[in-house]
């Protein structure tokens, strides 16, 4: 069962909202109904699975903030249903709504929304204070939340004494104190510096994996969306234009808008080894004799081959010269001549993590799964090719998209940049 189910919701600001919804339903555009009201969200439907990070991505004015505010009833949809278990947030009464907010949905805000006159600890304890939990108990719980976000020992400070990143950790701790299954995050990291934002993203992923929360994350930053989201809903002008995983959206953009949007995404963080790899041209079991090995190498016209054991686990590499030598000495298998070869990468490694190993070796990179089985290889040229934007993107004629430096990652750390440069012709 889904954690949250949204069915055809509309939000039109203005007195004649219902009429606008009727017109929109009949195919009118957002501009057509402008005299009746501002259509912020139009016919949005999606399911969020328990334990999923669901990202809603869109530029400002796309309706994503309005959308997230309907998911905890801060705004009522003009039409449609939002099912949270049995309850429909579109029709639930004020007392029941407060109950849902206390027990089941909490929220992290873009500008932190902390109470400036209360200590960090009391801010983190706020949800329990609302629920009428005693002071000692709620402070103990809040202390735990602060610990989870790495703010132990800061409880006595005021929010104004903390940096932006730390304040947002307080915001996150506050939501964790509420201990709801669903966490709404409204542009939660957008007000932070890029480096701190990166940290917070990692922390969120980490917390999500530890606590198994369902996270609905709003952002205007595609890289953030691709990095965090198990699934991403792309919004434009009030409508959801595509829902899918990062790779699905990159590989198959639903329309020109999405394609243009992803044209300048930092692919190195999104594309994973699994989507770049291909079957190895030659792969030898360690038990095979030198004669067979030579045959396969010459068939494949390769100077070396990866070697695997009986379970197909990656062992290393043999070179043709060593195989010839083994044949001369009459060895029965390859176990004596296996070299460590390039370090294998895992299937879920990001493109950015492949640069360093690829630079180390002329050979393709071996890719292994979680059981260390060799599942594919990535030739160096594929890594370079993957960095260039989709050729099918409609903006391909736009020279800015095709320039090689445009396709380079814009915000990789200095390490990645260094290996990219030094890893060339060695």
């Amino acid at each position, binding site marked *: 069962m889904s954690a949250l189910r949204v069915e055809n919701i509309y939000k039109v600001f203005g007195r004649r909202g219902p009429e606008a919804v009727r017109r929109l339903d009949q195919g009118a555009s957002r501009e057509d109904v402008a005299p009746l009201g501002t259509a912020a969200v139009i016919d949005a439907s999606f399911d969020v699975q328990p334990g999923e990070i669901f990202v809603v991505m869109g530029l400002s004015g796309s309706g994503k903030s309005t959308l997230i*505010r309907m998911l*905890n009833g*801060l705004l009522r949809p003009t039409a449609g249903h939002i099912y949270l278990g049995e309850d429909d947030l579109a029709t639930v009464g004020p007392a029941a*709504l*407060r*109950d*849902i*907010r*206390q*027990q089941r*949905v*909490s*929220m992290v*805000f*873009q*500008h*932190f*929304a*902390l*109470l*400036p*006159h*209360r200590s960090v600890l009391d801010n983190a304890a*706020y*949800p329990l204070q*609302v*629920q009428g939990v005693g002071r000692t108990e709620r402070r103990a719980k809040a202390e735990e939340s602060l610990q989870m976000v790495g703010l132990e020992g800061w409880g006595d400070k*005021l*929010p*104004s*004494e*903390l*940096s932006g990143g730390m304040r947002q950790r307080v915001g996150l701790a*506050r939501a964790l104190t*509420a201990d709801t299954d669903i966490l*709404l995050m409204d542009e939660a990291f957008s007000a932070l510096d890029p480096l701190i934002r990166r940290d917070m993203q990692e922390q969120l992923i980490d917390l999500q994996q530890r606590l198994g929360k369902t996270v609905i994350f709003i952002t205007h930053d595609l890289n953030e969306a691709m990095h965090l989201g198990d699934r991403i809903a792309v919004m434009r002008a009030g409508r959801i234009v595509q829902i899918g995983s990062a790779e699905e959206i990159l590989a198959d953009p639903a329309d020109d808008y999405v394609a243009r949007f992803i044209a300048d995404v930092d692919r190195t963080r999104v594309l994973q080894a699994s989507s770049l790899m291909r079957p190895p041209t030659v792969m030898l079991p360690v038990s095979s004799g030198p004669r067979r090995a030579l045959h396969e190498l010459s068939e494949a016209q390769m100077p070396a081959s990866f070697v695997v054991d009986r379970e197909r686990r990656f062992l290393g590499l043999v070179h043709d010269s060593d195989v010839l030598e083994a044949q001369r000495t009459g060895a029965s298998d390859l176990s004596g001549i296996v070299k460590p070869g390039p370090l294998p990468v895992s299937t879920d490694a990001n493109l950015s993590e492949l640069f360093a190993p690829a630079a180390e070796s002329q050979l393709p990179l071996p890719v292994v799964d979680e059981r260390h089985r060799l599942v594919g290889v990535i030739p160096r040229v594929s890594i370079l090719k993957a960095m260039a934007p989709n050729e099918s993107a409609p903006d391909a004629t736009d020279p800015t998209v095709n320039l090689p430096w445009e396709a380079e990652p814009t915000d990789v750390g200095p390490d990645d940049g260094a290996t990219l440069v030094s890893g060339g012709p060695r």
Partner: protein
Amino acid sequence: MNGPLFTLPLGEWVASFVRWMTSTFKPVFDFIKTILEGIYDLIAAVLGEPPFVAVALVLVILAFLVKGWKLALGTAIGFLVIEGVGQWGNAMDTLALVILASFIALLIGIPLGIWAARNDSVSAVVRPVLDFMQTMPAFVYLIPTVVIFLTGAVPGLVATIVFALAPGVRFTELGIRQVDKEVVEAGHAFGSHPRRILREIQLPLALPTIMAGVNQVIMLSLSMVVIAGMVGAGGLGRDVVAALSRVNVGLGFEAGLAVVILAMYLDRITAALSDRSPVARALRTTVA
């Protein structure tokens, strides 16, 4: 000479309305007058009966507690000057009037401001009424209040309350509307009741602004209370009016100076109080 194009007997209507009110609600007004007079006499007695040194000392200590020794010293000097020119008794009468008028003005103004902040229609109605109350020349209020309450402290008090009400309402509304929308949303998002959001989020965060309004109410009260001397409200106003009618420069200056000293005292005390609110203190603490 041409006569006016048409006449609008607005003045007559207002006059007859006031006459009708006076006769119809006479028991109500009498009751209000008795209550207000009683409270005023009590406050004036508390401030005026004890010897100068006792009352002044309490006020100086108050200044020390809310602000510090500098304000305490200034207050002491100021009060000695008032005593020296023989205006202490009048100053205490005036202080009693200001305290009572401000208190009632805030009692009406702050809830009205809260209501206006939470309801746009209320705000739309209240705003022009406040404009009217603030811009109508202060003397004009004295006329109907004298008709209704005759002379003495009460007509002066009532006129002062009406005159000083506006900033209490305005600043309260402004303060609450200025509270960060996201913080209020956070209150809702964690399931707080709107009443608790008002008490725990909106009012504390609006407090510095509301206190600025309180300060304005007190200052306006003080200026109006002096004018109310014309209808026999007593205190410094009476001497100012007397000095005016007798063209007595000396007395006018002495009474006027006492008003200035009292005003500065009240202003600094209320400003210091608003600085001490938790939110104001929290906002001063920033990352080093």
